């Protein structure tokens, strides 16, 4: 029997596989098709203080081995999530990690306050890295002092596990992870999407209405692995790896690079049951390699030559 439980801050999850924010709705969309109680946890679509209708279409474009998206944080707002979604979700034996986005530091805090009074939230993931909104996205996540401020203020509101979701669109992501740790975050999740763009050569128009969008899918996996490894080497903080994971091999690769857990994102659009296959694949890998605890994989990278 392989031990699959991992600990992220104060949060214990039954296995290291989560579904990423924005790729699995609020967790209740496909209850008849996917047994969510088998997942390590669900990270909800980003919630804002007020509902958001999102960006104009077209919002997505397929690109080689991936896609661009600019959904613009369309969501039902925190209050409706509390009254309509949480009561359903808390009946399932899986961690509910609520992803939060905001334009102002006060709004991040207010959303958490409202969720603290509700029952069923396991942890928070703070989105400071959405590339598709004018304020509150990359503007926060690419600025060290803003990142520090958001972590510091949200930390004051909750004792629950606080995960900060980081963007790869910076020069040194480990500087941001360091700030998160210093200000009291329990973990960092990385990477959010990579800013990208595609143009239709017939019409010469950008393929998505907001011109640039966030690139996700297998195309960004090597970028994500490099960022996870950079943070792992430089900062002592639990890492949740995200970026193009579609198979169990991808998940194991992230864990070897230093991720304690992983999030499966865009692959849910191709097959919403893929996370369950990834979980069984990780267990099989452990069994075949006589690994008794998945934590043994974390950061087990082998480096032959001295690093330059």
């Amino acid at each position, binding site marked *: 029997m392989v031990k699959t439980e991992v600990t992220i801050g104060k949060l214990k999850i039954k296995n290291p596989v989560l579904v990423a924010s924005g790729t699995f709705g609020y967790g209740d969309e496909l209850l008849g*098709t996917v047994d969510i109680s088998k997942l390590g946890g669900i990270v909800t679509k980003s919630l804002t203080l007020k509902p958001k209708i*999102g960006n104009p*279409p077209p*919002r*997505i474009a397929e690109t080689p*081995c991936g896609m661009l998206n600019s959904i613009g944080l369309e969501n039902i707002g925190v209050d409706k999530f509390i009254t309509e979604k949480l009561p359903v979700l808390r009946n399932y034996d899986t961690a509910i990690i609520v992803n939060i986005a905001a334009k102002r530091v006060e709004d991040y805090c207010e959303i958490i306050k409202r969720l603290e009074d509700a029952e069923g939230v396991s942890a928070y993931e703070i989105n400071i890295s959405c590339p598709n909104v004018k304020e509150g996205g990359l503007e926060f996540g690419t600025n060290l002092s803003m990142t520090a401020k958001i972590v510091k203020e949200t930390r004051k509101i909750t004792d629950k596990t606080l995960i900060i979701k980081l963007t790869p669109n910076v020069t040194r992501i480990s500087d941001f992870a360091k700030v998160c740790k210093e200000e009291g975050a329990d973990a960092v999740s990385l990477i959010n999407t990579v800013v990208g763009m595609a143009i239709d050569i017939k019409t010469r128009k950008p393929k998505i209405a907001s011109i640039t969008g966030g690139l996700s899918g297998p195309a960004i996996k090597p970028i994500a692995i490099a960022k996870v490894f950079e943070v792992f080497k430089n900062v002592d903080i639990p890492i949740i790896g995200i970026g193009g994971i579609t198979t169990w091999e991808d998940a194991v690769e992230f864990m070897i690079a230093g991720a304690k857990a992983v999030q499966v994102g865009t692959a849910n659009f*191709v097959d919403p049951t893929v996370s369950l296959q990834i979980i069984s694949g990780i267990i099989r890998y452990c069994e075949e390699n006589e690994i008794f605890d998945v934590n043994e994989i974390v950061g087990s990278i082998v480096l032959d030559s001295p690093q330059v």
Partner: protein
Amino acid sequence: MIIKTTALVVSNELVAENIYRMEILSPEISRNAKPGQFINIKISENFDPFLPRPFSIYNTIEDKIQIIFNAIGKGTKILSTFKAGASINIFGPLGRGFNIADEFDIAVVVAGGLGIAPFPFLTKILKEKNKKIISFVGAKTKNQIVTDGLENIKIATDDGSLGYKGTIIEFLKSNILNMNLTSSLSTFKIFGCGPNPMLKALVNLCNELKINCEISVETQMACGTGLCRGCAVRSKDGNYKLACKDGPVFNSNEIILW
């Protein structure tokens, strides 16, 4: 209930210029599907193309479902190489189909190009309900006309190589105006599917003549289930609706075509 399954390709045949009809064995999807719904097909195990492809359910025949596609893009070109006996990853039935419960005696089906895709299935169900059906099918040229499974077919081609020369909507309009329909327009219902310029012209016509009309739209789509919120369509109330979940069939006065 959405069914995810690896199914058997029963046949995949060329039915018109570059247009293929594939028959897939899937008893559960066949039993659960409604006209206007679609399935997602995962084309490649190697993530390229990455996203699944949505296809209207062309028809159901006992345990089988059919789809129709034009082999022009990366995904459909790969799909055209699938032979009988191959297995294929499908997911469905997805989306909201046509509403056939409202009041109408005569169904007018209007298809532009591969917009015929959902209509043989709709026709079959409407016939079971004893509705009269008239089908208007338009295409660029006669080699692209597919009419299997339709009833009372009227054809228009852009180049005049078959039927009326001109657009299907011009042809439809002249037919409707010639039908001498004194006060009985309300008993008509139009079901449209095709490229956006055609759908726009159809919606304008239906507004002008005050005819109840449903259209099936096509957008960029990723998940097909509402998870990604990618296939947004502008709705009349200033919000967005999702083509995959709220559609792909919408009443013509629900949404704003782009």
